[in-house]
Every structure is written in C-alpha cells, then in structure tokens.
C-alpha cells in the first residue's frame, strides 16, 4: 500500500540564536533543504553557482548538496571534498555535524575542518571568497569548507555596522579567547609558584580570601570549572523559563554561599566566571576552549608558568600545523599573508578589498576592480 505523498511541515524563517546582528539580514536557515537553497540563490543569481547533489545514508537517504561558485572555488578542493563525501557509507545522516566529522582528514584533530553557520548572508559571503557550502536536508546548519581560525574572530556585525572600532572588537575577541583558555591556569601558576609577581596589596587580599580554604587551590579550581560546565550543560537542555532559575541558583548558591561558608574561595570563583564568560566570545569554539582551559589549568597547577609557556608554544605549533583542504588554519597570521590582513584583525573599507583572501584556495584572485578605474570608464 502506497503512503500518501505530503510535503513535510516547515518552520517559518526566524533569526537564528547564533550570529545575531544589530543591523543587517535576520533570516536564518530552516530544516528544509529546498528553502535553504532558495535563500542562497535569492542572493546569488549567477549561473556560476553550481550544486552537486548526493544521497547519503542507507536508510535515511538524506539529500546532501555541495554548492560552490564555479569560477571562484579551487577545483582541487571541490574534487577533494566531493571524493570524501562519496566515501561516506553509513546508516543515516541526521545533521550536518555527521558530515563535518566525516570531512576531517584527521579524526582526532582538535579543530573542525568545516565551519557551521545558520545564516544565508554569511554563507553567500563565504562562497564569494572561494569556500564550498554543504547543505543537509533536515538541518538548519550549513557547513562551509575550508575552515580557518580567523572566521571565529570575524563577526557579521563587523561588516554591517561600519568600520569604526572593528579592529578593537576583533582584538578583544582574540584576547578574550586567550583569557578563557589561560586565565585559570595562570592564576594557579602565579598563586602556587610565583607569588612575587603579584603586587603586595593584591597578594594580601588573595591571602585573606583563601585563608580558610577547604581544598588545595588546584582541586578547588577543578571543582569550580566542573560546576561551571555542569551548569552550562544543564542550562542548554533545560526549558527556557527554567534557565533563569538555574542562573540564580548558580550565582547565589555557588557564588555567594559557597564562598561565604569557605567551601570555595572568592578569587577562584571570580577567575572561572571571567574565563567562562569570555569563552562564549567564539561560539564555534566553545568545546575546544573548554577542553583547553581544563588542560592549561592542570598544566598551570602542576608545572607553573614554565609549563604554561611550554604548553602554549606546543599548542601554537600544533595549531599552525593544521592545513585542511589547502587552507592553513592560522592564516593569514601564520603563515603571514599580507593581502589578507585587510580583513584580519584590521578591516579596511570594502572598496579597498580588491583581492580575494589568499588564505582560502581559489582560482579567481580578483574580487573587484578599484572604484577609480571602474568609474573612469563611464
């Protein structure tokens, strides 16, 4: 008996919870792949936009679309991604995250080979830079590949709200990520091994606050970090109206009561709170930042500043070694690419971004003609 064919129900377009902007497009992707394609083709009308259709999943038969601009994207990257997608042979694909994991040449790599995005305007901007987009039916998240670290420093607001202060904001994001990863470890290292660095008044304040500590500093720090992670995980799955209640409990019980009865010291709670808040500065890297924070906390606690510095150098060299699909992960900082500095920490006005970023492999290096030259021809 044949099942009656019905078009599946669809969610209306809303602004996604990630990547909200003050000024700028607010449309977000939905779970229907056809709607998502329409949102992209609404913005790119050129026939250069190519879609390769694949069906993956023995039982789910999930429709996957690989999109790219034919005259911009590097054919070797298209070929490499396509060949990797064709190798996937599984029961089913439920979400783009399944594809993202399959695309990573090194399964144990800390960083993902593809970036996730929920907004069509961002996907279009990335396609125009030579990246590829992967859409999965049933997922409101679209992958772009290759993925570099700089994408986490850039934000849609940088492009829609003028150039003023963009450099400062991007620098703050970068510093924020460093604080999120290193601050608990640095605090432990300084308070356990290098007390002479701390100014005398601050040292006295810390000594007063940690005088009656129940646990050794490193154990206390691990407890507070674990509590923070538990609260974060609970808030994620909890109904929205209960989320605020959890926050109140977290603030008053953990922050106030635990510190006042001497279970946890106030400086440790403060350090983890600062580190926790700053970890949200890069939404796509929260998992990595959490893991690195924990590792550096242990390094700082056991090996002091020396261990922290050595660990940071090893992390930097490891991160610099990553090349997914021809794009160095730390480009355009390492390797330094002068042309791409126009939209790295600094952002020049759009008319000055003549060349396409070289950090992303592409076969069409010029993005636009200089305005003087264009206007002179009219």
């Amino acid at each position, binding site marked *: 008996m044949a099942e009656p064919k019905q078009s599946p129900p669809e969610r209306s377009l809303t602004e996604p919870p990630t990547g909200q902007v003050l000024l700028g497009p607010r449309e977000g992707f939905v779970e229907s792949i056809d709607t998502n394609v329409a949102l992209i083709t609404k913005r790119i009308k050129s026939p250069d936009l190519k879609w390769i259709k694949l069906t993956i999943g023995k039982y789910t038969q999930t429709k996957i679309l690989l999109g790219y601009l034919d005259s911009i994207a590097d054919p070797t990257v298209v070929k490499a991604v396509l060949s990797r997608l064709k190798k996937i042979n599984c029961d089913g694909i439920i979400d783009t995250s399944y594809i993202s994991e399959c695309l990573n040449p090194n399964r144990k790599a800390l960083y993902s080979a593809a970036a996730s995005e929920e907004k069509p305007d961002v996907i279009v901007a990335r396609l125009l830079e030579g990246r590829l987009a992967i859409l999965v039916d049933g997922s409101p998240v679209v992958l772009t590949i290759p993925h570099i670290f700089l994408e986490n420093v850039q934000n849609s607001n940088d492009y829609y709200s003028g150039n003023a202060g963009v450099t400062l904001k991007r620098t703050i994001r970068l510093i924020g990520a460093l604080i999120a990863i290193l601050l608990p470890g640095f605090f432990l290292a300084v308070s356990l091994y290098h007390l002479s*660095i701390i100014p005398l008044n601050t040292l006295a304040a810390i000594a007063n606050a940690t005088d009656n500590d129940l646990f050794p500093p490193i154990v206390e720090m691990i407890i507070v970090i674990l509590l923070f992670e538990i609260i974060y995980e609970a808030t994620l799955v909890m109904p929205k109206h209960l989320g605020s209640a959890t926050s109140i409990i977290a603030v008053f019980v953990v922050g106030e009561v635990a510190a006042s009865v001497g279970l946890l010291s106030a400086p440790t709670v403060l350090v983890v709170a600062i580190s926790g808040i700053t970890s949200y500065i890069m939404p796509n890297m929260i998992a990595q930042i959490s893991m690195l924070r924990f590792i550096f906390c242990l390094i700082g606690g056991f090996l002091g500043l020396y261990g922290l510095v050595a660990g940071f150098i*090893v992390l930097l060299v490891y991160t610099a070694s990553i090349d997914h699909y021809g794009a160095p992960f730390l480009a355009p900082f390492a390797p330094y690419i002068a042309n791409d500095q126009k939209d790295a920490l600094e952002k020049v006005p759009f008319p000055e971004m003549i060349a396409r970023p070289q950090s992303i492999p592409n076969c069409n290096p010029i993005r636009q003609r200089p305005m003087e030259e264009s206007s002179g021809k009219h």
Partner: protein
Amino acid sequence: MENIKRHQVINLRQLCLGYFLYSISIKVLTLPSTLAKGAGNWAWLSALLGIVFELVLVIVASLILKFTDNRNRFFRGLCWLLLPLIALEIILTATQIFQLAYTDLFTNLGITVFVITLIGLGMFFLTRQPRAVFRASEILWLFFTFGLILAVIPTLYQINVNWHDLVRGNGGQILSTTLINLGFFETATFVLAFGSETRKTNRDLIKLNLTALLCGIGYVVVMILFVLLFGSLGRHQTMGLVDLTTAAQFITNSGSMDWLIATAILAALVLRFGIQLVAMVTLVKRGLNHRD
C-alpha cells in the same frame, strides 16, 4: 592551486623570523652571563667576535644554498656532517632547560624531569612538520619582542655609563669563550637545513644576510649595555638576563617581574629546542634525499 603550494614550504619571511627568534633565544636571552663568566668585561668583544664568525658562516651557507642543488651528493654529505653538531646542541639545550627549571622553579627532581620529558615529547611530536614551527614563529616573535622590551627598557633607565668598564680586565679568555659559547655552527646549520626548501634568489639571500647582520648588531649593543650597567658581569652566576635586568627592582611597588623574564628565557629555550629537533630531522631527510 598555486597559493596552496606556496604555503606548504618555509618561505623567506618565515626563515628570517625563525632566524631572529633563534638568535634572540640563543644569544640575548640565554648567553650574556655565560659569556661574562668566561671573558669578564670583555664579554662584548667576545660577542662581537662570535657575530663576525657567524656572519661569515651564514654567508657561506647562503652561497651553498645559491650554487648547490639540495639533492646532490655534496649537499647530502654536508647534512650528514652537520648532524652530530646539532645533536650535541640538542643535548646542551635540554641541559639548560633542566638547569633553569630545576634551580628556579621545581626543586623537586621528579617534577623537573617530568616537565623536560613533556616538553621533549611535545616537540618531538611536532618535528613531523617543520613548517608548523616556522609558521608559529610568525606569531611568537611578537611575544619575544615584547618580552625583550620589557627586560631592556627598565634597564636603560638605570644605566650608569662608565666607558672604562668596557676595556678593563683580562682579555685573554675572549677567543676561547667565543669558541665555546657562541653557537655559530648551529646557526649556519639552521640556515642550511631550512633554507634548502626552496631555491633562493640573490635578493632572498641578501635579505637573509641582512637579518643575520641586524640580529648580530642588536646582540652586541645589548652586551655593551649590560657591561656598562653592571661593570664586571662575571660575578653573576645565573643564566641569561634574570639577574642582569633591573626589572625586578623597577616593579617593586606592583609586583616583581623577574619570573616573567625567567619564563621568557624558558620559552626561548623551548623554542630553540624545538627548532633544533626539527633541524635534525630535516638534515636527516636531506641526507637521505627524502622529498617532503
């Protein structure tokens, strides 16, 4: 496709920055007091002599890079010849890291050995991709320059010029101190190993030699500053700048900075250790004519 290939090799900028970091880590951060122990007030002349030797060797290395194919027998033979030198330097650097960690931080021998092993394992793991270390140097040089400024600027405020200090004392130890302490063979090996990734033009080689010259001048200036500031440097027993800078006294009201400088020195040593390991692996690869 062209830009993909360009990022897969160590380029000239990375080589020059790597050289800067390497020479800073060897010389400015770790050697002043070692030289001073040998040559006393003449340490600056010992440094100058070492720089001259080094420049000559870097120029020779540059010429080898220019006129020799890095696949021929001569080049491969040279790589095997330099291998024991760099292996010896690796042992020396590991000893220095051990000394610094053991005397300045972990009085516990077990923890110190654990730290050194961790650093060694981490660095050995990373030797598989020499370009990664050089890419990282494009970021690290900023931190090192900042650390150096932090160490030198407070010192300049307290400098007490006495030019006679520069020529006082026994100069008999100058040459031996230079030969023992300055790793100029090591630096030439560095240039040969990593410079052979791509063919160098005359302009590239001039830039490389200029970098070597500027780093050398910078080092001699630093040495003169320290002799002028501290008179007989020989009395200082610890390594590098830790006791030589006045940063510790300068920040008396807001916490001492000497640990930060000691940390910068360790970072320099760790980086140097990493580069030496990578250089050794690269030399073996070149010696075996292995294609990257």
